[in-house]
């Protein structure tokens, strides 16, 4: 559906029970699409199951053709319709419609959404562009001297994370490289545009999750090269420009200097020293997660403590990336597993999807969204790309905003007992009113235990917790540790106590544990 809705002049007839039309509102509400997705659902009900659901499908397809007059039609079955085995492809072909009909085989009991989008895009591109294919073994002739290079932009869809703005940002860069954009697909493309994909010199693949099948097929069929770099972050953007410049033989100078980025200077400015070593957890689709980890580590000076993806198809790439940070990648689509991991690692910032935003909120950790699936607030009215130099600026602002400002963080560490600075108080620039804490809490003006008390070692759940008791003083001292690492300090101390058969945890035990784990 993300493919069909991204395109123009196509219509998708989906054999599905009533209720599946909820998918429409993901587009009309979350993305604020001002039109209905081009999808007709058969919305069969129990009473239809004994009868002619095939006839129901054919009527829906015929009516959709007459009403919407598309250039091409996609037909498919939802998870339930798959079970009743009506063969939408055969039924639609039997109607002999005067347009290409593309049958989608998307086994929903085995595969996930991104795979479905990639497969749909691939099927419709093949249906439209294969008739234009040159003979096998075709070699693309070198570009005639004096002509501008042209490329396709592949991958952007409806309901994608900042796809609209990324396409804009990439087009600006390509203009600076004197490269013409031939077709952008699927976003904004018609079936006729897809038929012309083979005419471009090369392909720019922005979102491998949805576009790599198509890019590979175009490479095999039309001998088009694909730009592999994905321009998210400063370093990756420079590589993207260099890769295109090398392929097309143009001077990258204008593209490299045309859009100076503030993010690099901001990151170097002294104010940003408080960002150093902030522990971040990254989760999302593979492309965005890998890019975010690189930006976090290399461009903001964070420490990547967790990296993961729900894209099993790209698990290998994410595992490779995780090795760079000395960690093991989390490959799962179970949000409870992600939540458990975040709780265990206690990061200071979570970079994730809509789901991780909920997780971070529950755990009281600041969060920024870096990947689909996303919610309505991730479709901002303003131009807000993730790609290119402006994208790097957007990322800097978005990630740094949820964090506590530098000096404020120090004050919070120094004056734990201040009633406006209690644990539940958010960063003051975020503007919530904090409820004053119970005034009877012990005022603590002593320097607090530095955050380094907590090592990055994994702290396994402590089974012997019940064995060790906390002395009142030690409990009080623990309260002086910044709240975002306090849980970890508590568990490390308890583990230390258990390992050393300490029955009562005193202030001394707390500092012994700190020394033990900070080695």
């Amino acid at each position, binding site marked *: 559906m993300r493919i069909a809705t991204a395109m123009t002049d196509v219509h998708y007839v989906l054999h599905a*029970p*009533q*209720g*599946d*039309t*909820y998918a*429409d*509102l*993901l587009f*009309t*509400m*979350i993305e*604020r*699409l*001002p*039109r*209905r997705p081009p999808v*007709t*659902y*058969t*919305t*069969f*009900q*129990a009473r*239809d*199951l004994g009868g*002619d659901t095939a*006839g*129901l499908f054919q*009527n*829906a397809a015929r*009516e959709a053709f007459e*009403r919407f007059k598309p250039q091409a039609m996609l037909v498919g079955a*939802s*998870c*339930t319709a798959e*079970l*009743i085995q009506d063969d939408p492809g055969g039924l639609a072909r039997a109607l002999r419609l005067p347009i290409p009909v593309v049958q989608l085989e998307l*086994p*929903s*009991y*085995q595969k*996930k*959404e991104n795979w479905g989008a990639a497969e749909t895009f691939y099927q419709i591109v093949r249906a439209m562009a294969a008739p234009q294919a040159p003979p096998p073994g075709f070699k693309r002739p070198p570009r005639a001297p004096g002509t501008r290079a042209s490329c396709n932009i592949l991958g952007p869809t409806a309901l994608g994370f900042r796809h609209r703005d990324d396409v804009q940002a990439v087009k600006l860069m390509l203009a600076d490289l004197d490269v013409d954009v031939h077709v952008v697909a699927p976003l904004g493309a018609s079936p006729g545009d897809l038929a012309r994909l083979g005419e471009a010199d090369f392909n720019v693949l922005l979102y491998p999750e949805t576009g790599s099948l198509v890019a590979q097929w175009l490479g095999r069929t039309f001998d088009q090269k694909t730009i592999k770099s994905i321009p998210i972050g400063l370093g990756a953007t420079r590589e993207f420009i260099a890769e295109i410049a090398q392929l097309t033989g143009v001077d990258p100078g204008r593209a490299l200097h045309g859009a100076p980025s503030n993010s690099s200077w901001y990151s170097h400015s002294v104010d940003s020293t408080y960002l150093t070593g902030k522990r971040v957890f990254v989760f999302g689709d593979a492309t965005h997660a890998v890019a975010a980890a690189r930006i976090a580590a290399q461009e903001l000076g964070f420490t990547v403590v967790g990296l993961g993806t729900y894209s099993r198809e790209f698990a290998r790439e994410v595992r490779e990336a995780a090795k760079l940070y000395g960690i093991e990648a989390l490959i799962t689509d179970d949000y409870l597993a992600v939540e458990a991991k975040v709780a265990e690692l206690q990061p200071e910032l979570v970079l994730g999807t*809509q*789901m991780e935003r*909920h997780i971070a*909120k*529950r755990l009281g950790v600041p969060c920024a969204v870096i990947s689909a*699936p996303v*919610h309505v607030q991730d479709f901002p009215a303003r131009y807000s790309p993730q790609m290119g130099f402006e994208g790097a600026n957007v990322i800097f602002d978005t990630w740094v905003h949820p964090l506590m400002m530098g000096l404020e963080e120090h004050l919070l560490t120094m004056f734990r007992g201040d009633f406006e600075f209690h644990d539940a108080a958010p960063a003051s620039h975020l503007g919530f009113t904090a409820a004053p804490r119970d005034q009877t809490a012990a005022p603590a003006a002593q320097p607090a235990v530095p955050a380094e008390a907590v090592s990055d070692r994994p702290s396994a759940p402590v089974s012997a917790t019940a064995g060790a008791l906390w002395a009142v003083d030690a409990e009080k001292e623990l309260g002086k540790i910044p709240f975002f690492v306090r849980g970890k300090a508590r568990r490390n101390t308890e583990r230390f106590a258990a390992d050393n058969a300490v029955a009562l945890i005193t202030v001394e035990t707390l500092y012994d544990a700190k020394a033990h784990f900070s080695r």
Partner: protein
Amino acid sequence: MSAATGNCTAEGGVSRGNLRYSAERGQREVFCGLTGIIWLHRKIQDAFFLVVGSRTCAHLMQSAAGVMIFAEPRFATAIIDERDLAGLADANVELDRVVTQLLERRPDIKLLFLVGSCPSEVIKLDLSRAALRLSSRFSPQVRVLNYSGSGIETTFTQGEDACLASLVPGLPRLGEEAAPNLLIVGALADVVEDQMRRLFDEMGIADVQFFPPRRSTLLPAVGARTRYLLAQPFLADTARALEELGARRIAATFPLGAEGTASWLKAAAEAWAVDPSLYRRVTQPAYERAQRALSRYRDLLAGKRIFFFPDSQLEVPLARFLSAEMGMELVEVGTPYLHRAHLSADLDLLPPGTRVVEGQHVENQLDRCHAAKPDLVVCGLGLANPLEAQGLTTKWSIELVFTPIQGFNQAADLAELFARPLVRRTRLVA
């Protein structure tokens, strides 16, 4: 309306009782019954809803509910995958494993619903047997029930009907000698329940219970002298199940608006033979306050033309409120199902000639809507933004299910929901 073709029929209108009824079939732009879990899991605080379905079901619950709810939700989806499709025995073993895990993790759960979905029904996974099996294993700590929230069986609010109907056979029974009791049937906001309870108390109707209750341990008892009053218009199966236990319905309008609420309370007062002067004394102040609050919106709404797309089955009582109490003009009242008996009091109060359409053919209905150019369109979220983009003013119908709208004190809130989009249009200049 286009010519009838095959299954997508649009039967010609029938005039009966001064209204123009018709029924149509085609694409239905509605939610399935699983959506009801979103409010039911908040209403019954020790219940858990386990959907037995596909990734699509999980996605629906996550996107429809997950985005609105931040506490750990008391619902989840047991996902059927290809291994389960290979043989039913595996699916049952898998289900038992998921349920055991769930109940270990959530010892606070006292009532577990296994909720059927489209795929579980098409593969004929027998959830009632699974519920019996699991119930005997986990009783008395946990009761396990089942119902269907599938799109092939249920439309949106019918999910609540199916859920409540599954609870009825397990309700405590009252003997012949028991005193009459009053049951209010249909999930209401807690604040509305409390208001209603105070009014019944003041009228001397003491034995009032609400169904569903806030906790599964507070299930109401039913017997031959039980009378029930529907608070929601979509409870056909629940009503039938209650009647089988001997309970009898008190016919009334639904408690929307000042008049609707007054006559709903009055029906109960009459059934309990409450002195009419006592009824007046108890309800008059709240009724007058509601009328005062409504008068502010009457100028805004009177004379405006409204078009209902089918959604929650609340359409007929809402149409009655908006036409009879607020002076709006009804262009079309679409509703997924029309329960003529339960709605008769409200239908009787619709203006002669009102077009009432049961079922849906969304494309044809959109054509009629565009042709009629109403001042306000009540529709689902899938249609609202596209219609706004075409210049129509819309009211999301789902908000009418998620807002406390019943009773005297909420009458003006209900009117405001319809006034707000109209006011907004006049405020925006660019």
